[in-house]
């Protein structure tokens, strides 16, 4: 199966979190009671039982205009993932779709102890799952799209607005640039994220953002 891209167009997102729920359903993850993270206590975060989370930011531009910005956080699925490089047990594999997957049968944090994958990841994505005793993160739904049914990821299928789409690498990259060009007249700060030329190479997850990275509390240059 060829390399895929998950494209997240923040200009279409309504922060309904259907994606977040669908991810939990597909991966059979439990609720996280007692956490007020949906719309309060920013920043909401990824956990060992939450592979994706929609964060919201309020932004005020130079002319005083206020806007809400939504960012669906998750693993970027890098071309040369540093997490895979640092894992002493070689538990992190790159699938043909470009998915970077922590293999449950190999990951064993009680052996590597320091959880180097989480510490090395520049986005701090891998997280410890208490119940399983393993590191967990988004799998780019490799176990959903590899069955030949032509389905997209669970989050993309659940998204009601088309903010999330999934498809072949070259098609989606082209779509991302076209969409960006459409947005620029209304959103002069719009951009693609993350940068595709860093040490980790390009990524299988791409975002279209309507504002600067700092407005999303994202680290510049990554």
């Amino acid at each position, binding site marked *: 199966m060829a390399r895929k891209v998950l494209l997240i167009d923040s200009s*279409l997102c309504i922060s309904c979190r259907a994606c977040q729920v669908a991810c939990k359903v597909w991966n059979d993850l439990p*609720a996280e009671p007692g956490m007020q993270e*949906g*719309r*309060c206590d920013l920043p909401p975060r990824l956990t060992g039982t939450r592979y994706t989370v929609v964060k919201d930011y*309020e932004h005020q531009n130079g002319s005083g205009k206020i*806007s809400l910005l939504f960012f669906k956080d998750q693993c970027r699925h890098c071309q040369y993932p540093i997490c895979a490089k640092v894992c002493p047990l070689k538990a992190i594999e790159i699938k043909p779709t470009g998915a970077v997957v922590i293999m449950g049968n190999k990951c064993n944090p009680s052996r590597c102890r320091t959880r180097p994958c989480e510490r090395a990841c520049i986005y701090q994505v891998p997280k410890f799952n208490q119940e399983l005793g393993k590191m967990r993160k988004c799998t780019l739904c490799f176990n959903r799209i590899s069955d030949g049914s032509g389905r997209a990821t669970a989050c993309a299928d659940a998204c*009601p607005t088309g903010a999330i789409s999934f498809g072949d690498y070259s098609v989606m990259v082209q779509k991302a640039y076209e969409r960006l060009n459409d947005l620029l007249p209304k959103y002069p700060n719009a951009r693609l994220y993350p940068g595709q030329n860093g040490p980790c190479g390009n990524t299988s997850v791409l975002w279209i953002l309507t504002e600067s990275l700092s407005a999303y509390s994202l680290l510049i240059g990554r």
Partner: protein
Amino acid sequence: MAIRRRDFLKWAGIGGLSITVSPLLSHTMKAFNILQGGEAYAYYLPTEFKYSMCGTCDNNCGVILKLVDGVVKEISGNPADELSSGGQGKICVKGQSAMRNLYDPDLLKKPLKRTNLNKGKDEDPGWVAISWDEAFTLIAERIRNAIDTVGPRFVLGLLRPTEVPMHFVDAIGTPNQVCHVDTCYITHDVAWWATLGVNKSRTLELEEATYLLCFGYDMPGKSKMAQLNGFLAARGKGAKIVVFDPRLSVTANMADEWFAIKPGTDLAVVLAMIQVIINENLYNAAYVSSYCYGFDELAAHVNSQGYTPEWAESICGIPADDIRRIAREFAASERPLSPAYKRDVGGPLYANSFSFCQAQIILNALVGAFERVGGFWIPRMPATPPSLAAFAPSKVNYPPKDGNIRVDGQHLFPSVTKAIGGGKKSKGNFSHLADGLRRARLGEPFPDGTPSYPVKVIISHSYDSHSFPNPDTLVAELCNPDIFLVVIDTIPSNIGWLADVVLPETWWVEIKNNFGTTDQHSLWNRMYLRDGVGALWDRKGFSAMVNGILNKLWPGQFDIDWGTLNLQRMRNVIGLGPTEDPVAWLRAHNGIWENKVYPPIPQNLANLGTPSKKIELYSQRLAQDGHEPMPVWHPKLTERSAADEFYVVTNHTPYHRMNKNRNDYLIMDLQPENLLYIHPDAAAMFGLKTGDYAWISSPTGKTLKIRVKVIKGIRPDTVMTEHGYGHFNRNLRVAFNKGINDGDLLPESTVSESLRRYPYNAAMGSAILDTVIRILGKA
């Protein structure tokens, strides 16, 4: 405790309402087997797809259920449904939540009887499971007793105005069918009836509009598929979008311009826009002269009243130049539309909401937006004939109604009665109910001197006290031991906690061999197959319950075979012969029958149901009933008078459908409490930061503790909170006691108050947000 689907097994055993463990267990076992270890197991289990129509919200999207070994594993949109998701096969997070609602271990599974005769929020009802026969006998005895000793009107239905509930109250002969519309869309119903001669319409073609002028219209923020899609399509095609809303809603966030308008002053803006459009000759003159009545009166009215943009600015604070500019842009645009839907500003939020609703219709009429591409359409419903009389005439020999004096005082509002079907339908008034029950208990007459009477039996279907403004007064009345309360629902509710008998109803995913239609966005007639999984546990559909109760009272007399009737109606609509199977037909046709008529037909406007047969800019009907025939500015009831007082607006989260999916653990995970959204300047006055708790007090004197989120996207004089939280039914193990009920902040209205506003309150809307709350300080 972390909850997940595989934990159902553990959950099924503990406490609460899980009375019959064995049938639950078998479903749970299936869910358990499939789910442990993820989906991989599913691949070698039998998989089946079924068509249905989502019933979680009233957008009624066409859906496909995916069943794995008989268990609903996925609910997705039906790509053949062009109207709900533009043929994308998408549905919203609330609809997807339905599969967890279906297997929720807290669901009602068997009829329950109360053993603790004391009622109250903190009284454990002491449920015991009873058989359906026992339940029907018990309820019928109470109804019989009320009818024999005092009369049918002493039975009250809290029931929606649809066919089966109406059959039920008609058979009993009570005039009391009370429903929620005065807190929802009653203003739209009556204003449409007064100006267009038809009931409400939510039939609007957003996607082709070139200019959307929105007043609090936040359908995208509620993830209502049809409106969300239409909105995004219009935006994608470059429509200009302007939103007036006290806070930066999701819709406002996607708009070109957002005006943080003072709550309850939108009417001034629309009146000024009407004035500009008329005085500058910007209206669609050909359309107005062909299809509208009363233009000269309207023109004289807005000028003699002085409804200029400068006047509006003095009321709402929005610069006159902006109001004028937007009025000009709107009228000049190719296909302008000011959309409306239920509980936006045109809904019954403020004392002046009826006038607003009427003014918004007039604004749309002046630019020719009715029966036009990218505009409002005259409703195409119903596709199915009201068929009781056609198919079962011997069963509709109803007794005469037991008078017309209603507990909620609807008889004092003739326009409402006429608008909703000349008395054939009853929509009644949630927010007068507590007042009515109190009046009856004290033996006080109505304001016009007619005597009141105390209700003996209340039957509530799929409603919750939670949705009432200031529900505590209603809760107190419902605790009256003289009232026998029957509650029918799929899931434990707060009103159910007070019930004498609770009947478990099937959830929409269970409905099969049936169909659904929708009037919400029905640009053309459609009928959906409902081919669900069948009743789980010991649940029944509502119509089976109605038959069960009526057969105990009058054996056979009102017994309707609703199942056969539904199949007949389906054949009738599709045009099938008497032996053909409509379910098979629909299965073979993507689950949807439709009769697509496009584009809209302006000639439909040539013979409207108003006295002039035109769109009445001057409403003769309103004049007849003693109301203002054209919208007049009236201020909202409550003005802020101190620095610690704030206007309050409420909202639904995109993931909650009122209370229906309140107990979904994954939805609760997204936002376990509702929040008080407050401007930084206001927060600073009390030293509040995001994440703090604050004490607030309602106009009725209740003190509540709520978590704060500080945002810039709201007016400094206004706070916002969300509906769907603060449940007191302990059988809702996920939803119990999380957050506060926004209804606790809002005052209920009384019949006398509504009558005081009679001249401009033809719809007896409840002015539900017309209030201020007080922030007491950090908790």
